[in-house]
């Protein structure tokens, strides 16, 4: 038998209180949850890009990335889209109700490794959630990073997540040496058009890759971090490679069915032949180099 690291039941979730629910869109809500056990707060050390298994009794668990970053993780923010049984059940909960949480899981983004470099964050839709944690971390430790550029694509003004925050950064981000670019898909979106009138150099109608036309992106000492729907990766990566980004300068975070979150249940296994990985344990953050070597990853 192999060496065993004994923790108490790793599959046992901890009760957390929903202290605040913010409606973001018709199908997305931001849940602020607070661990009930002080013990857990101390044990809960995480980095941006990690996720938790969020459970509702009688329904089950779903992997949700943490979309906030605080030194003291007493309160986690989880942006949850109502798409399946579990997330539907979560959406039915009210402030004061309990959620059952396990984690944090996954590798997260190598924030230390990227220190001293420029960051290019590219988010599409709900993919902005984990990148928001990266952004919060980087802004809190602003001096450790070079230029920060954010591309954020969404369908329409109404479907823009964390709207207030990002509009604030859109307008005032330069003060924190942050350049935020937005793209919206809906051609008839009047509110976005107004934003374009206000600051046309930072917003474009179309898919997120259109933002590459808006600004010069240099691969020099830069890491690109991407999160969005699976379809987005190929196009974004293509643009980055065109601009001479090396595969190991590009970070992606992946979605898969992750039942356990700890590399046991097998659902998130990806790859073929020589390279097979667990998305939950070896990822969900991978470099594009990993993706090139792991068939079926993106």
């Amino acid at each position, binding site marked *: 038998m192999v060496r065993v690291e004994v923790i108490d039941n790793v599959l046992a979730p901890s009760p957390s209180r929903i202290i605040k629910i913010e409606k973001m869109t018709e199908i997305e809500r931001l849940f602020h949850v607070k661990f009930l056990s002080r013990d857990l707060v101390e044990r809960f050390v995480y980095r941006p890009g990690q996720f938790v298994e969020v459970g509702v009794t009688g329904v089950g668990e779903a992997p949700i990335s943490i979309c906030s970053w605080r030194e003291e993780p007493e309160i986690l923010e989880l942006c949850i889209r109502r798409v399946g049984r579990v997330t539907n059940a979560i959406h039915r909960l009210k402030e004061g109700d309990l959620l059952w949480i396990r984690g944090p899981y996954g590798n997260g983004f190598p924030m230390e490794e990227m220190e001293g470099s420029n960051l290019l964050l590219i988010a599409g839709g709900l993919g902005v959630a984990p990148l928001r944690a990266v952004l919060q971390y980087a802004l809190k430790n602003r001096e450790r990073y070079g230029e920060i550029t954010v591309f954020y694509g969404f369908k329409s003004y109404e479907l823009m997540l964390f709207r207030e925050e990002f509009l604030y950064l859109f307008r005032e981000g330069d003060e924190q040496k942050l350049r935020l670019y937005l793209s919206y898909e809906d051609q008839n979106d009047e509110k976005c058009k107004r934003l374009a009138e206000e600051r046309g150099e930072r917003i474009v109608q179309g898919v997120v890759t259109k933002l590459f036309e808006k600004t010069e992106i240099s691969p020099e000492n830069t890491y690109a971090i991407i999160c969005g729907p699976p379809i987005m990766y190929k196009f974004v990566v293509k643009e980055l490679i065109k601009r001479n980004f090396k595969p190991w300068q590009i970070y992606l975070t992946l979605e898969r069915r992750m039942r356990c979150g700890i590399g046991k249940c*097998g659902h998130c296994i990806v790859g073929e032949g020589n390279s097979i990985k667990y998305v939950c344990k070896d990822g969900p953050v991978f470099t594009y180099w990993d993706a090139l070597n792991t068939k079926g990853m993106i």
Partner: protein
Amino acid sequence: MMYLKLPREDFDAFFKNLQEYGKIYGPVKAGSSAYNFKEVTTLDEMDLSYNRTIVPPKKFFVGLKEKIFEFDEKRAEFREVIEDDPRKVIFGIHSCDIHALKLLDKIYLEDMADKYYLERRRNAILIGIDCHPDEHCFCKSMGTSYATDGFDLFLHEISDGFFVRVGSMKGHEIVAKNKGLFDPVGSEDIEEFKRSQKKRLDEFKLELNLSGLQDMLELAHNSQIWDEYAEKCLGCGTCNLVCPTCRCYDVIDFVNLDITTGERVRRWDSCMLRRHGLVAGGLNFRPTRVERLRNRFNCKGSLLEGMLNCVGCGRCTVYCPAGIDYVEVLRKIAGD
């Protein structure tokens, strides 16, 4: 390693004495040609010349379908469900299955140990037994036809009893406690053991060339072979459920009639099933049978966890209702 001899006339007494280490489970005939590990109280309930059980002994460590938690919403409580007495003696486990458990140990015990697995694994005694290959066994090719560790005792049948290898401290304790039943091995016993091992190796008919297998699999990504077998494949999941190295499980919650309490159940899963790669919202990372079949062969042929993920037990071939032959597929992939 310590070697001893268990004379045939002491076999029954030895078996009986094992009961103090927990309930004994051994291979019992289940159908006309199938076997299962079942609880036994006497030697003759078992058929120790069995070829393979339907489901592997993994079931003793990760239950086929088991309640892992009970919850109570009113009391905001999540209670783990762990059996009172996890002590078991698995009698007559084959070398391939021992190797498979070594892989499962890595999965379930290395970083973030699964408590259920750990409790049961710590409390189980594994008694290996020699087997004779049939036409579906290819453990010799996989390097798993002989277990050098991973057991407590291993029994090799010789003419007047068993040549016993003692593989662990627990095994040592057992033989120490049953001193009177064991003899030291004589030179004749050693010769017989050697002869029988040689003879056994010669019995293997099926072979699989492993050299470069991972590359062959990757290179076969677009091969017609997958389409061909996916057409035959019923997608029933049997290959996974009988596989000793498959580790996938699913988790389901149930609510009791009082609507405020319930249970969380875990059940063996299969990557051949549609839902395996499905995420909320309907996106499926392996939407077709071709992708699922290819994924399974890749997973089995991989070195995930740093070792081969197949032990050559032959179960997937024997129990495939569509008659898909695992070795045949891999041979085609490798161009043999």
